[in-house]
Each structure stands twice: as C-alpha cells, then as structure tokens.
C-alpha cells in the first residue's frame, strides 16, 4: 500500500461527490455530527451500534458485516471513502474493518471532518437513500489483528507501539483528556512499548504528515523494521490510525492493531505493567 492508494484529498473528494461507484461513509462514535451536517451523499456508520457486537465484547462478525453493508447499500466493487471526526480515529478503525473483511477499494479522506470544516466546504443534512445490495464479506484477515496472548508474547520480542498520550502511557491519566477519568483498570503501559502518540503523525488540520516526516518519527522512536509490530491505545481506534500510517502509508510489513488495547490489557490478572515515561524491561 501507499499514500496514493490509501488516501484521498478533500479536493479529490469534492470533485467526486457524484461519481458512480464512489460511496462516502462518515464514521463516528457520536453520529449527531452526521445528523447536523455531512458531506453531500455520505451515509453514516455508528462505531458503537453498527460496528460493535451488542452482546459480546467484540466487533461484528463476517455475517454481521455482510448484513450491515448490504442494508446500507454498499457493493463489493464500490470505492469506499471513509471520513469522520476526532482526526479520523473512527474512520481509520472502520478502514481497518473493511480491510479485515477483504474489501477491495477503500480509502481515507485526508483530514476527515476537521479539514472539511476548516476549509469551509459544503455540508448537507439530506440523507441519501441507497438500494439494498448483497454484500459478501471475506473471512477475517487476522494477519492485521492482534489478540491478548500474542501481545503478552510480544513483550521484548516485537515492536510494541503505545499511541496514547504521554500521560496515559505513564499511568498519570487513564483516558484521553476530553473524557472523565474514573475507570477501574490499572494505569501504565505494556513493558518495552515505545510511546509514539497518534497525534505525532497528524498535522493540526487532521491531515497526515508527509511520508518522510512519518518515517523519521517512527525511526527515531526506535521501531525496528526487522521486527513485527503491534500498535495499541485504549480501545483500539487511535491505534487503527497508527496502524494505517505504518501499514498503509509507510508500507511496513506485519503490522497488527491490538483492538483490545489498554481497556483489556490493563484489566488482565497477572500481566506485567510499567509505570512512568520509560518503556521498561521485558
């Protein structure tokens, strides 16, 4: 993958709003943003209601994903353009899903909602009606998804990238600073993880930094290209953003997103945890 095949600009998007076979999809945790105004022609996906299983702690399975996209009128051969708020966190999470379930042509809109807003581009409240389709998701590609045991085994052997803020990494905060902090799990990070906050990879307007800047950031953080990499955050959405940077923009091999992330790891019994700013020892 590369920037050209994984990312489109706001200018490209504006010129292709009516292009047949191109489907704009807004993805957010809170879809009131979509309801208040969205890119013309875009449909919405709700990160919690649509993409998470409503009973088990997991995301939707192959059948549920097929049913969801069929119901929303998305075909296997459509080009999907994902965007959202929060600097595209949840759009990147959805991108990872589309890849996991084998969708052929999917891209992120660089800068997401923020760039669109700061450019003062047009919104609409019209909700498009799309005819139902018969979408078939592939079996999940677990080569891009890490599970907890694999993460514990990765301590000291693989690149672990903690993409939360420095205060969350050190255990001083348990959640991003726009959310209340009370939570049951322990603070800290997985031993040997390097801290490269997701925000390092984004410009102020939400667009991604250049490939040269990105390569420098992860190189200086000590990411070893000879090793496999697992990215994690708190609930797996910010680490999807970094997974996208490493795998899709920089084209690194064997990069996984650990979607269980700190809310799972920090609640496990008996696993090692490191407090403070240093990665710590295996």
């Amino acid at each position: 993958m590369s920037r050209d095949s994984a990312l489109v600009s706001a200018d490209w998007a504006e010129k292709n709003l009516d292009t047949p076979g191109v489907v704009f999809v807004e993805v957010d945790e809170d879809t009131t943003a979509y309801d208040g105004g969205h890119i013309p022609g875009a449909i919405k996906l709700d990160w919690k209601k649509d993409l998470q299983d409503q009973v088990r702690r997991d995301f939707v399975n192959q059948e549920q994903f097929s049913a969801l996209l069929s119901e929303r009128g998305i075909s296997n051969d459509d080009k999907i353009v994902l965007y959202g708020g929060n600097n595209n966190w949840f759009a990147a999470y959805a991108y990872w899903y589309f890849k996991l379930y084998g969708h052929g042509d999917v891209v992120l809109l660089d800068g997401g909602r923020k760039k669109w807003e700061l450019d003062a581009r047009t919104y609409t409240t019209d909700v498009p009606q799309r005819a139902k389709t018969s979408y078939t998701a592939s079996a999940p590609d677990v080569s891009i998804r890490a599970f907890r045991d694999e993460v514990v085994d990765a301590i000291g052997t693989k690149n672990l990238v903690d993409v939360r803020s420095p205060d969350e990494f050190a255990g001083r905060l348990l959640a991003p600073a726009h959310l209340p902090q009370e939570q049951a799990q322990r603070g800290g990070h997985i031993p040997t993880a390097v801290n490269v906050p997701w925000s390092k990879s984004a410009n102020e307007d939400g667009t991604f930094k250049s490939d040269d800047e990105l390569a420098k950031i992860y190189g200086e953080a000590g990411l070893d290209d000879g090793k496999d990499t697992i990215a994690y955050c708190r609930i797996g959405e910010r680490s999807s953003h970094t997974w996208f940077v490493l795998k899709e923009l920089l084209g690194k091999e064997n990069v996984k997103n650990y979607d269980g992330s700190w809310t799972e790891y920090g609640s496990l019994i008996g696993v090692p945890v490191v407090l403070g700013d240093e990665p710590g020892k295996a």
Partner: protein
Amino acid sequence: MTAPDISGCAAPDQSAPIPAGVDLEKETVITGIVNNAEGEAVGGAYVRLLDSSGEFTAEVVTSPQGVFRFFAAPGSWTLRALSRHGNGDLVVDAARGVNEVGLKLAA
C-alpha cells in the same frame, strides 16, 4: 453566516452539565467559551489541549453555544482553537476543580 452544527465527534456533549458521576474533588476541569473578535460564541470550533511542552493531549469540538470542556490534571496547559473563522491560543494554569476560561479567535 451561521456555522453548521457539528457538535459531537465522539466527545460528550460539550454544553451538557458535568455528569453526576464525575468527582470534582479529584478532577481538573478546564472549560470555557470560544468567541470571535466581535465577542460572539463560535460553535463547531476545534479546541486542542496541549501540555506544557506543547505536546497534543486532546481535542474537542465546541457546542453550538461555543462551549468546550477538558478533564485534565493540575498544571500549565495551552488551549488552541481552530475554526473556519480564525484561530486563537490561551495559556491556562489549572488547579483541581473547575477552571473557567475565555478563548478568543483572532480575526
């Protein structure tokens, strides 16, 4: 021109009362209103919370009334607002409890 309502974006409703479960004895809340050069509230602005080294910590979108809110920690922080109407910065020394500030956009 009225900005569209783009509140939300994964952050809790910025103008809602602080949830009852939040303990203000423990939390450090930084809250306020973004105003333009004419003093009018600006909804749909992006407010970024940067730590004392200038590192990004969090970002929210202001409510239609221009309100933003962060749950931070005591210390020095920088607020930076971005909007289609202009940008603005403010340094805040926050203490435990509620810290109310005003953030003005340069024309």
